């Protein structure tokens, strides 16, 4: 198993932390992982992206040309990365942030209304965990248990009471992805 993933969106959407939690979940399940962020000025309010690779074997490059999975959370990211999905690969986009949906027919395209769902939860910060839940429903490369263990490790102790909310968000994401 090897999944080369890019998650892309606006700075502040929780793109980097979503990738980090996915990478941690991989670590918890004894997989090889790399996490390579865009760390440039775009991180401050522009577009941000992170490449995460989860694999059973040693990973050569943390930077790749094409991806098994592309998750886009805004229009510029869709335009930049739609062409980078491997044929037969998976593209997930957030519904309300995309005006012109993807057009490729040689890949699997799924959408998720994560912003609406987060608002219904009265927790806009749960947005990225809803997206992650949707992704893991389609590609269960790590278990929800692994993700929760990852959260336990990454979140400072004072935020551990938020883990159940994150679990709800992951479950919800799995239910609402189209």
């Amino acid at each position, binding site marked *: 198993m090897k999944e080369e993933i890019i998650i892309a969106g606006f700075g502040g959407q929780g793109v980097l932390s979503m990738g980090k939690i996915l990478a941690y979940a991989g*670590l918890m399940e004894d997989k090889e992982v*790399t996490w*390579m962020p865009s*760390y*440039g000025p775009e991180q401050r309010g522009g577009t941000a992206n992170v490449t995460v690779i989860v694999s059973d074997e040693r990973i*050569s490059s*943390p*930077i*790749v*040309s094409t991806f098994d999975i592309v998750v886009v959370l805004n229009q510029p990211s869709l335009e930049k990365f739609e062409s980078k999905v491997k044929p037969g690969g998976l593209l997930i986009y957030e519904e309300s942030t995309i005006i012109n949906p993807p057009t490729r027919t040689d890949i699997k395209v799924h959408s998720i209304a994560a912003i609406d769902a987060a608002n219904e939860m009265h927790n806009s910060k749960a947005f990225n965990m809803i997206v992650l839940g949707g992704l893991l429903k389609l590609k269960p490369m790590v278990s929800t248990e692994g993700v929760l263990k990852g959260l336990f490790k990454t979140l400072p102790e004072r935020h551990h009471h938020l883990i159940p909310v994150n679990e709800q968000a992951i479950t919800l994401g799995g239910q609402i992805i189209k």
Partner: protein
Amino acid sequence: MAKEEVVLMKGNEAIAHAAIRYGVDGYFGYPITPQSEVLETLTEIQPWNTTGMVVLQAESEVAAINMVYGGAGTGKKVMTSSSSPGISLKQEGISYIAGAELPCLIVNVMRGGPGLGTIQPSQADYFQTVKGGGHGDYRLITLAPASVQEMADFVGLGFELAFKYRNPVMMLADGVVGQMMEKLVLPAQQERLTDEEVVARCPWASTGKTKDRKPNIITSLELQPNIMEQKNISFQEKYKIIEQAEVRYEELFCEDAELIIVAFGAMARISQKAIEMAREEGIKVGLIRPITLWPFPTQIISDYANKVKGFLSVELNAGQMVEDVRLAVNGRVKVEHFGRLGGIVPDPDEIVEALKEHFI
């Protein structure tokens, strides 16, 4: 006491954790992207409360390197880190430390230049590091980490070599290995050396003169040219020993290779992916990854020059290490360079294209 453990963290964070666990006595630095996490992590962990390690944000890079100079003079394990523009500021101090034959570790997490340039990854300080940087006939033992694991390991190895040869060691990393997160094994906590152990290990150090020994003078100054020449000759003898004993490299897929990529740091990782892709197309490519940039793995490249059709030096610069590859190959086969500049990191397919363009 921290035990050996498997963790996921950035390369920069790994350096900070490793520094504490390898029993480093002092870190002196000044923040700069993309290596600020080193100082940030150290101040977050506050090792002065546990191991007694000193962590100090100096008023400038020049101050930081001179604090390292002073600390190293007392036989302590001291280090600094910065990124390219900050490393340029440290060059005078580095030359003095090399001239005074003191051990220390300097980390450069390279970003695009020249000047203030960009904060994105680069490897354009190769010349600065292995060909000079500061003034005078000195050499820096230069380690090039290609993974987060090596960012931690080379703190240990760096100090080992620095003390073995009483020579400054440079860890020449790049923004990719600094910023990426990977799984790594952190070593168990080592005790810092006691003052008595430092005196025993470093009889040359200025640790406080006792009645029965002559003063230890730490200086790079010697106004008598004949004595200065002798000093230089002894430096060169030391460098020759290092060149013979300390070359390190990794060789991958070279057994059946018709072409060889030479790449270090992040570019070695990206080149590995390019090699996997090229081999799917039937192009037999191997990789030589210099782990020490000085001393450079000249011999292994020279050996392969009799077996392969050509070499591609892949670097995040306009062609620096390629000169050392050409010296090793000495005209026997074609040596080409591929690089991106100013903070752009190529995708693996660009490297495959460069291979095809030059050799197929």
